[in-house]
């Protein structure tokens, strides 16, 4: 299972529904406790993918100072990324690759 080939992350926050989907895929352990009892799944991206995402989603921002993550991607994009992550059994850059191809 590919996980952290990139250093830039997209944080997908995990609610009960999303956790259930991850559990069914045997990926629940990838959702890490991140903040005050909240879990997130980090999908890793490359520098090039980051630039493409920021071009495609004008409202998104890259937090280079603290979290090194792409923030404010719309919910539908996060839902799709999570769906692909489960489908591909991965949290590596190939997930974002597929997302960029399909979106």
């Amino acid at each position, binding site marked *: 299972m590919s996980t952290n080939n990139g250093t830039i992350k997209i944080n997908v926050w995990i609610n009960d529904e999303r956790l259930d989907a991850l559990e069914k895929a045997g990926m629940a352990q990838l959702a890490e406790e991140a903040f005050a009892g*909240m879990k997130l799944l980090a999908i890793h991206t490359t520098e090039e993918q980051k630039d493409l995402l920021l071009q495609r989603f004008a409202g998104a921002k890259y937090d280079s100072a603290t979290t090194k993550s792409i*923030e*404010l991607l719309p919910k539908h994009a*996060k839902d799709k990324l999570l769906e692909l992550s489960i489908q591909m059994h991965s949290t590596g850059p190939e997930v974002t690759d597929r997302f960029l191809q399909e979106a």
Partner: protein
Amino acid sequence: MDYVGHNGKPIVERVSTAHAAAQIKDLTRVPISKATAHEVISLSYGFFTPLTGFMGPREVDGTLDDMQLPDGTLWSIPIVFDMSTDDIKKLDIKEGGSVLLEYLGAPMAIFDIAQIYEYDLERMAEKTYGTTDARHPGVKKTMSYQNRFLSGDITLINEPVFNEPFKSFWLTPKQHRDTLTQKGWQHVVAHQTRNVPHTGHEALMKQAWFAANEDLPIDTLKTGVLVNCIIGQKRAGDYIDEAILLAQDALRANGYFRDDVHKVSFTLWDMRYAGPREAIFHAILRANLGCTHHMFGRDHAGVGDFYQPYDAQNLLTKHREELSIKPVFLKENWYCPQCQEVTNSALCGHDATSQSFSGSVIRSILTDEVKPTQRVMRHEVFEVVMDSAAKYGEGSPFCTEEYLKNRRPVFTLDQLEGLDS
């Protein structure tokens, strides 16, 4: 009722709606922007007491060089009215004359022009913001001013009609004071915000309440928190105004604050992000609303990395004797997994495992529409934020281009009867 504001000055109220049509009949009409309309309202009702209008060069010089108005009153941000020389010529505006300011085609205020002057924009930016870096939004605003400024008194002749939900939270400075008196509050601590509240904010307000209560008895509570939201120019990604007001109020409505210790209102003001100088300005503003204390946390009114986290607190300390309000200084709150609570970094020693309430983390959670844990945000607050997003934000709790284009205005102005349009 004694309406005394900043530096012991009587609260300014320059509103004259009687016979307005006759007053303005022959005046030249000058259309103004939303930002200027906000300042016209704030000047007219006395939010900016002791200012009675837009500043002249002497007031601007004093503000920039010494943080003082000509009479020695502490003041930190220039309040100016800009116009191009072409427009001044075209509209035949002259010193000693008066013009009618109109907003969105409706008459709003009379502007008695005292002086027309030029000012060095770079100096104004550098002194106000401590930088001329064009990435600073305040610098950007200053550098985009037209090449002349007009000074003089403002008189509101047409009062704004606020739309809901703003109408429920609107109070003039005198109305603020009447309301605080009715509540029996002897001490009032202001909380400045442009955010929907997470539990870190809630804890700051509660800590500030204890600090502000000082030695007042607690059998009958006589201290309140005034959550005075800043409603003004928005940037894409900011929280929508409606969500800010309604979510702050949800803390009281759902018992996280008692009814008798919490009140939400707002001020029309376009944030300058001037950090320390803006903190001084906020202290002046809230003194005019009748607050006795003002909470200042980390990075107050700053932007990016232009200011150090406690620059604002340091400047307030320097001018402590000139303030008409007592600052309450707090460090940031964090969530501590070891303490298992939201706690203040001044008290909790688990620095290595602490989890910060970063704005981007909260925004990221809300964007995903994932209900936060109670330790992050009250569920009722989250519901209000999401309801506001659906009702006012075209699905988003954050300002989008669509929201900025299509939003229902905060206020409107009626056309005046008896006035030919």
